[in-house]
């Protein structure tokens, strides 16, 4: 059950974020907000292989939510409930989608984006190649760190040194990324990408029962606040 998220197709994963975004507009009261967040948390508990990652995402979107709570409370009159609901609304809007993005396989996403959603093939292929480079960044980072360590310029435990080091590493990674990108674009063009007019896809974009079930679930989760809102809760 907990590996389900890795087996459904990437559009289903994206739909989690899309429907939670639509649903978030109906988060108008504290009960609706709490029920919705609770259901998403329950779904995360059941369907995700890890807890750490969704928690990290929760921390990031939680930060955004807290700033909204504060500004609503300051600017919209000191009404705590309104402010908290506004914050939770942001959480419903951002958290589920941000978690799901991490589980998307770039290659599979491009298959579905081009074949199911009929997005322009060249754009999709370029986007997918770019995302692939992103996963290569982890390796590049490791290599950069290794050379810096071997060259005697890696920082010790001192936090100031660590921050400086991270800055210089990030810059080095950026430089590598830009240089890699130009080589990449030369290599891609030399494999027929420059004049790819009617691109095909090596793998089909199929919709299994699991995918359809997943989609139904994400629609349901997104509909929870809307139904509650319409029912006048």
């Amino acid at each position, binding site marked *: 059950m907990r590996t389900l998220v890795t087996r459904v197709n990437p559009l289903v994963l994206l739909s989690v974020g899309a429907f939670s975004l639509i649903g978030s507009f109906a988060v108008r009261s504290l009960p609706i907000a709490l029920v919705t967040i609770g259901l998403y948390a329950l779904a995360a508990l059941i369907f995700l292989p890890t807890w750490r990652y969704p928690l990290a995402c929760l921390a990031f979107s939680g930060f955004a939510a807290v700033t909204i709570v504060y500004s609503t409370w300051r600017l919209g009159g000191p009404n705590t409930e309104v402010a908290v609901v506004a914050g939770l609304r942001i959480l419903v809007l951002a958290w589920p989608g941000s978690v799901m993005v991490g589980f998307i396989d770039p290659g599979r996403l491009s298959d579905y984006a081009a074949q199911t959603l009929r997005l322009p093939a060249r754009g999709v292929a370029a986007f997918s190649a770019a995302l692939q480079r992103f996963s290569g960044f982890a390796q590049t980072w490791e*290599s950069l760190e290794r050379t810096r360590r071997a060259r005697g310029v890696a920082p010790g435990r001192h936090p100031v040194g660590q921050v400086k080091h991270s800055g210089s590493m990030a810059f080095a990674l950026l430089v590598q990324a830009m240089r890699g990108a130009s080589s990449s674009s030369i*290599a891609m063009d030399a494999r027929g990408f420059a004049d790819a007019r009617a691109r095909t896809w090596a793998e089909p974009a199929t919709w299994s029962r699991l995918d359809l079930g997943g989609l139904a679930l994400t629609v349901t989760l997104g509909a929870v606040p809307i139904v509650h809102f319409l029912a006048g809760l």
Partner: protein
Amino acid sequence: MRSGAIRFRGFTWRPVGRKNPTIAGLDLHIEPGERVLLVGPSGSGKSTLLHAAAGALGTTISGEASGDVSVEGRLGLVLQNPADAIVAERIGRDVAFGPENLGLPRDEIWRRVDRALSAVRLDYPRDHLTSALSGGEQQRLVLAGVLATEPDVVLLDEPTSMLDAVTAERARDAVLAAVGDRTLVVVEHRFEPWLDHVDRVVALDPGGVVGFDGSVGEFLALGGRPGLWMPGAPPPTPVDIPAAFVTPTPHSWSSSPVSRWSSNRALRYTASFLDTQEPERAVMEPSQQGASAAMERDHAPSAPKPVIASDVDVVLTTRMIRGTRRHPALSNFSARLDPGTTTAITGPSGAGKSTALLAMTGLVRVSGGTVTPDRTRMRSRDLAREIGWVPQNPELGFLTTSVREEVERTASALGVEVDADELLALVGLERFAPSHPYRLSGGEQRRLAMISALAHRPGFVALDEPTVGQDRDTWAVVTGWYTAAARAGAVVALATHDPDAPRDAEISVGEAVTAT
């Protein structure tokens, strides 16, 4: 123009940041179906020529181009750094990228993918992760990706430089079988095995000028050109690098007692071996006996220690949110490296040569077995004092924005005084001292990476494929550097597939480790 023809007419190219063009007024016509071997010393503009044919100059790569270059038909290009050409997470989809662009039906795509993968002997399942491939395997993957598009013109930039002899031969056979009667332009330093399969040889001289253009027979009759690896010639004798540049620095030193060997003399010295075509040892003038004696005296208390690896396993972990994947990169590796000895770590592409080197330097944690001394927990500065590691991809190692600063960087962090200009003169890079390291050619970058990693004279010298991309002259400098370090008492280990690279001992890492 027929499909497969390449034409350069008065082509000139000056990259941004260079005063002089790297290719000047080039005229070159390559007929459809011709197989051309493009040779020339390190930095003569061979890769630039391929980039020009691929239409990348003046567009993706900025600079000033004039004249004409045209290629008729579909082009396939394998670049020097294979990692940049990988576009997908798994090998099957990566090879499929080209056929997808051509709009082929799905059955045909996979037929070509399987055929290309087996042609380059990459015997992994289609869903094998590209991130788990070694440098040599990546090179074969990129080759497969190009072969799968069945191009009219195939341009290969050092396609087998990272491969051992057996794998290189297979890759070459795969290229030749796949190329058939298409046009082929191949750049290679160790070109002897290609000579039987090409119709024409073009030799570039420094400055991107055609120095020779003719048949293989005429080329061989010429008897050799400066710097080229002519067939049958014995490998050059390693240059005798003065001990003062390589003798391990004792930890207590805060500044080096290296005599002020004048830059002029260093330049003259470099010139003397660059002119020498015959394998004879360039002899250093006996100018630093005093310094050597001082070194021996100071040297004794912290002489380099042997490095012993027993039953070492290394499992590399790729962490993704979708899950963690582990790839065995090295298994059951045992070795003893002694001071004063050069040990070559050999083995087929993908067997774990680079990983073995990393494990022994303490730059990667082992998952089984032991390495003594264990340096994995040392502070960066302390580690650097003891080891010098020359990475396979030199670009990942550059820390500064000028060649001179690059050479001084580690040494100054450790408080060891070095004369960057002397070091640069020794490896023939003195004219690039103010340039950015990225402006150098592949072979030049490797030499810079080597002296930058070794300038502070560590006791353990570890080099990953140091001879790749070197012409005869620069090869003699690179091999001279590490053999001199070993003579001066350092522990020297190199991961290599170059059978000519000098060594005292050899350890083979066996068969390629297959991922699970």
